[in-house]
């Protein structure tokens, strides 16, 4: 059992991951990961390089099939279902490395985020909301996404994921390679998005930022969860400070 710091506020469950194992050939990347995200939660997953953070998100979003364990979304079993079928069930995944469509315009990228939706008015409204979050995207809307700066691409990746109006947003290292100021902006928007009712499962190297935002957080080490707790409690923990905050 992982060590638990602080007490968790009880919320209706949205995502439940239980005993998930993932293998890449001979390599076992996840050795029975269990975690949960409640409705309205921001949950952070921190850990060193290669701990299995990305693998966890991939198993949740259906990008790869777990070899054991179950994944539940809003009480429904979704284990091993292909990724494209989960978007309609309220899950959006902004994959590691952003994965924008470089030769399509910013606007086309955003429209693809709403690929499964047909409510024109709602889409237009959400587009405005994204431009409100990140005004630079409006200025660049006719520009090819591949020509955006790294920070702008990350803004686009998050906005595109939000265009599907998800209940649960999966983010893989949104701060990777970005200047502190841009990272601040992005985290400010994530807080706002969460306040508007979107639950977030956040993978981050930048443990400081992630724990500052998260209601609950898990520490992943070589494919297993070793510690969990409130963001504040983990920030205060000596072990976490030593291992992940470089103190």
């Amino acid at each position, binding site marked *: 059992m992982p060590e638990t710091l602080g007490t968790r506020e009880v919320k209706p469950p949205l995502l439940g991951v239980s005993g998930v194992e993932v293998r890449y050939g001979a390599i076992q990347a996840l050795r029975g990961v269990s975690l949960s995200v409640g409705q309205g939660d921001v949950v952070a997953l921190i850990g060193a390089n290669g701990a299995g953070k990305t693998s966890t998100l991939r198993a949740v*979003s259906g*990008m790869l099939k777990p070899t054991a364990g179950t994944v539940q979304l809003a009480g429904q079993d979704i284990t091993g279902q*292909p*990724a*494209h*079928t989960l*978007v*309609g069930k309220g899950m*959006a*995944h*902004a*994959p590691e490395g952003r*994965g*924008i*469509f*470089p*030769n*399509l*315009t910013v606007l*086309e990228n955003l*429209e*693809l*985020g709403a*690929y*499964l939706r047909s409510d024109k008015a709602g889409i237009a409204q959400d587009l405005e909301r994204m431009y409100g979050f990140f005004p630079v995207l409006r200025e660049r809307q*006719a520009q*090819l996404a*591949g020509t955006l700066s790294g920070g702008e691409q990350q803004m686009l990746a998050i906005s*595109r*994921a939000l265009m*599907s109006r998800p209940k649960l947003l999966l983010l893989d290292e949104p701060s990777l390679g970005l200047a502190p100021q841009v990272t601040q902006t992005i985290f400010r928007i994530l807080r706002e998005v969460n306040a508007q009712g979107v639950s977030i499962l956040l993978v981050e190297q930048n443990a400081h930022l992630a724990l500052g935002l998260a209601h609950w957080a898990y520490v992943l080490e070589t494919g297993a969860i070793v510690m969990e707790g409130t963001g504040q409690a983990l920030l205060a923990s000596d072990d976490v400070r030593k291992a992940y905050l470089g103190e």
Partner: protein
Amino acid sequence: MLRTTSTLVVAGAACALASWLFASSQFFALQASLVGVAVILAVSLNLINGITGQFSIGHGGFMGVGAYVGVVTSSLLTQFQLLPGAPQVVSDQLVLLIALATGGLAAGTMGFLVGLPSLRLKGDYLAIVTLGFGEIIRVAIQNTKEIASDELKLVQAQGIGAELAYRVTHLGRATGLSQIPQLTSFGMVWFWVFVVVMVTRRILGSPHGRALLAIREDEVAAEAMGVDTTGYKVRAFAVASFFAGVAGALFAHFQAIITPAQFDFVKSTEIVVFIVAGGLGSTSGAVVSAMALTLLPEVMRSLFGGFNVEQIRKPLFGLLLVVIMLTRPQGLFGTHELWDLGKRKKRPA
């Protein structure tokens, strides 16, 4: 729908008129037909390789399936009076249309069967599988038997089922099938050019087109947007294979002789060269380059005289591909379209 129908009717009438006007020049009609078939092949392969970003090098094989199935169909049907009392031209064209349909559907079904397992995987599996497919088709045909006319007469007496069974097992080995009725006019070919271009444009202008482009750009991200990537890749592949089959059936019915060598790896490569030279992803590029590259050896022959067009084609195309890759790797058109010229530039050159 009404607009589509009326455009099709107008295009059909224009092609019929052109056929009639130029019918006297056999040379013109043959060249126009060859060019048209090349365009259909290029535009349809571009749907897979250019627009969806997959890599097929077996389009010649699907063309071959269409050609052989089309010929078997027409040779069965021409014995019957399909439209009693109708003029010969009309019933001939009806036979041709049915042959095109069966040839296209057979190739499309093959495309579906070949695509389903190989397109579920990401990576270069499709290239390997389509390469193998083209070879299997060629070898399979080479291992059939030749038609013997006395044998055929006996079989024909036993009814259409027996004749069908005989014909599909007697595809003429490496020497091929000959004396195919020349039912294809170049107007019919260009009517199909029009259809394939229109279908491609329609797909691109729809949400389906967006999905295909997204797959080309980043398959994982497309999947994350809710795009059923496998489903779309397989459907695009089957549609493109259908048109390759139609092109093959058209080809067979003006060339009058088909051999397995006409649909081999060299043919497939030629079609890839068309679309790479035209600019992967650009339908206009595929059209222009298929036309130019089909006529080029012919033009060179008439300028310099003497050599065999087929012999010059291979080294010429090889050289051309090298030159294009060195000087303009994005191809003639990049991903641009002729019909977007007036619009604001959106895509990179």
